[in-house]
């Protein structure tokens, strides 16, 4: 059933399209949400609020020239007038621009609709759950929930709509200072039993942190990375490593793979749009293929190609947005049973989370970052003691190449908790990883 937001957007797009002159093409994108946000500290509320926002981007194309403008809509009758005047401003800009040699838009209409209703209680009830279930615990966290809307319409008649109800609860239980356990619960349908089970699991892990922590010397340690820890590494790689533009301008962190370096044959990375929660379409109107393989059994494969890069570098576009970053990253499973991870690790570090990764030498694929939250020293397959934060500095070719022993058979679907500008629709489907060695420096 179409929503009011959808009908308002398409009606606005229709009205604006009627105002286009012959030879003009108009692309309209909508990004909107209605969200409840609750921030917790010490198992109580720090800030609770509601945000309703809707942004319309108008992109006008004429005689091979293009310009765009983004405006905030109010959801009222005034929106049409504002959009009209904005269209006029964009049209005026076009007059002073040269032809854009890298302009590429989808001109064959491919309309899609994705709608998914969720079932979760009002945010006020979540507050009651937390205050009740986390009583006595040092609980810090953030709950975000509501409907996310993405829309696209162009003057060729294409109409795309993406509307999902999701919740994303990201929290941590703290023992003292930096000793804490991270947990999360995200999805479409809230189940209080699942929330309580996750709280229970985190509470049990917190007990392990009560043991006296150890400070380890820099050096190389055998390590097991949970899916959440691995997400930090794939997240950093998503910052340009798979981008067609970055690869063409030799700025990808996987540059050495263009010169013969390989990762382990166990590494197969895919932009798995059909398995994620991101929209099936992007801002130029291109519909994304179900899957694009980025690394195939350790070898560099496709890049993420935006329409602009496609035109500039003569590549086939594959539905990437202008940032050319994965939005539904999928890392193939391995053969290690997750339940056997500690035994397989034997002696080394169990790393629950990594934090604040960055490149210490980007062209060489060298990455640094910190351990965070539940990280333990393991001996004889048993957790021995929590470890004080350690800095690693190692190359992707060692971590996911020569030192990768295996990935776990089980994978976790991690929905992005990012709320910069808007609630993210990105996700990662990742296993855990057992490494023969990880290099720590501080």
């Amino acid at each position, binding site marked *: 059933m179409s929503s009011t937001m959808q009908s308002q957007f398409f009606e606005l797009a229709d009205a604006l399209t009627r105002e286009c002159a012959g030879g003009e093409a108009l692309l309209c994108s909508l990004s909107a949400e209605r969200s409840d946000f609750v921030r917790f500290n010490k198992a109580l509320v720090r800030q609770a609020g509601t945000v309703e926002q809707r942004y319309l981007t108008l992109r006008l194309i004429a005689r091979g020239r293009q310009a765009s403008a*983004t*405006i905030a809509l109010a959801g009222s009758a005034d929106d049409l007038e504002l959009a009209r005047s904005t269209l006029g401003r964009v049209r005026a800009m076009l007059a002073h*621009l040269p032809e854009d040699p890298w302009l590429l838009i989808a001109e064959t209409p491919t309309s899609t609709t994705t709608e998914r209703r969720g079932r979760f209680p009002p945010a006020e009830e979540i*507050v009651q759950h937390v205050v009740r279930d986390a009583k006595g615990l040092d609980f810090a966290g953030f709950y975000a929930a509501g409907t996310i809307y993405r829309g696209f319409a162009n003057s060729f008649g294409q109409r795309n709509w993406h509307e999902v109800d999701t919740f994303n609860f*990201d929290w941590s239980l703290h023992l003292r200072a930096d000793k804490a356990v991270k947990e999360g619960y995200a999805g479409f349908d809230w189940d209080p039993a699942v929330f309580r089970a996750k709280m229970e699991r985190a509470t049990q892990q917190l007990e392990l942190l009560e043991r006296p922590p150890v400070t380890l010397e820099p050096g190389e340690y055998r390590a097991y990375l949970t899916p959440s820890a691995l997400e930090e590494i794939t997240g950093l790689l998503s910052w340009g490593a798979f981008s067609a533009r970055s690869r063409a301008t030799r700025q990808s962190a996987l540059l050495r793979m263009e010169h013969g370096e390989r990762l382990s044959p166990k590494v197969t990375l895919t932009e798995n749009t059909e398995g994620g929660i991101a929209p099936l379409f992007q801002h130029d109107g291109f519909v994304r293929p179900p899957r694009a393989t980025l690394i195939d059994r350790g070898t560099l494969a496709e890049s993420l190609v935006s329409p602009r890069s496609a035109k500039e570098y003569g590549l086939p576009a594959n539905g990437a947005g202008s940032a050319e970053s994965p939005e539904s990253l999928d890392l193939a499973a391995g053969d290690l049973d997750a339940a056997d991870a500690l035994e397989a690790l034997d002696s080394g570090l169990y790393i629950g989370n990594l934090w604040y*990764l960055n490149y210490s030498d980007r062209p060489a694929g060298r990455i640094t970052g910190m351990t965070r939250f539940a990280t333990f020293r393991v001996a004889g397959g048993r957790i021995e003691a929590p470890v004080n934060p350690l800095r690693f500095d190692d190359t992707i070719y060692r971590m996911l190449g020569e030192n990768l022993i295996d990935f776990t058979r089980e994978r976790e679907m991690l929905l992005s908790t990012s709320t910069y500008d808007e609630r993210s629709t990105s996700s990662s489907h990742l296993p855990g990883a057992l490494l023969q060695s990880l290099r720590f420096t501080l």
Partner: protein
Amino acid sequence: MGSMNETIRKHFHSLRSTAPFWSLRVFEESREHLAVRQDTIEPPRLSSDHGAMLVAMTDGGYGYCATSDLTPAGLQSALDRASAWAASTRGASVHPYDPRDMPAPKGERLAPSTAAPTRSSSELYDLIADECRSARVDARIVERYAAIELRRADQLYLTNTGGDVRQQFVYTVPYAHVTANEGSETQSRSFLDARQGGFERLADSGFRGCGARLADEALQLLTAPNCPSGRMDLILMPDQMMLQIHESIGHPLELDRILGDERNYAGTSFVTREMFGTYQYGSKLLNVTFDPTIADELATYDFDDDGAAAEKVWLIREGVLERPLGGRISQARAGMAGTANSRACSWNRAPIDRMVNLNIEPGSHSLADMIGSVKRGVLMRSNVSWSIDDSRNKFQFGCEWGELIEDGELKGVVKNPNYRGVSADFWRSLAMVGNRDTFEVHGTLFCGKGEPNQVIHVGHAAPACLFKDVEVFGGQDE
């Protein structure tokens, strides 16, 4: 926005709430992004944003609601939602919010450069196209990019207790980067002048001529040796001091971190409340100020987003920690003095403790003095990599540009300069602070924090500084 402000004031007076305190913050912002890449004009991007944040506070509860519907009905609906949140969290809040803590400020800050633009888009395109073109000096230059972002913001803050503050801001931010490549070696140099002001700023920003300079420097880096490894002296130029201050002084001093709000996301702090007044954060040469008085610095303002009046405050004096970065609500929670730094990135986010202009006061040494004093060390400029633990202690930072110093003289360019350390020790190794001739105003547009996430601009002005016995290293071996 003048007539719009009058309309908003009129609407505001018609709003009703049972909460003893409520506020309305209307934020309007326009942006224009012009860029040239590889001598081709990128599609220009305009944006026009506006909306309102309604905050309600009861005795003990706090709630907010943001809307872009600025009609009386839209604002009242948002205030109702904010008031409902404040009522429902009254017995479940981490702090017994007290409406009496909230100021009722009055003031107006009009930006000095609010007149019509004095340069057309064509003139601006000519300027950035020149820089892009002039970087095309060698076949090994693989990417050239130059851009200008023009931004104007206008904010009105009203409270039911009589507060009425209007503030305007204008930013003109030129940016460029140039990348060189040969085989599996890639090096980049970049330019950013992030300050407040209008087009008049472009003349003294250093943007003109940067294209050829960046290209030359990127090519030098391509053939330079790796930065040496070992413990040695380190001179940080002001554009890297910016990052060093930001990560290892600014974030640790944020009072909301110290109070635990950020533990689930951006992290905690190695600084505790007990340290203020006695803790030796750095050497006696270290003087750090919260300074909203430097006109062109990125985060200069008269009032923060909770209505507190901004004034210059010493946070660290002669190395001793004096005061945290905490706004009115954090001050009430912690029972300690703070700063006017409660800020929101836009209308759709609630204010939290942020950095503003966080500066290091100049010292007495010339850059030549500092270089001359170094037996073996590296001078670094222009941040390229940043990573620090969640307590803001163990850090590792990298720069685009390094120069080896031996026996008091610069001995040539080194690539991939990195250094690492621990905040609590690092600032105690501060051995020389540059004089006013070395002092520069910088800023970052992308400081991320908060739940929901907020990215905000902050200013950092500093002189060049010399640190002793730092762990320095270069890039990966071939």
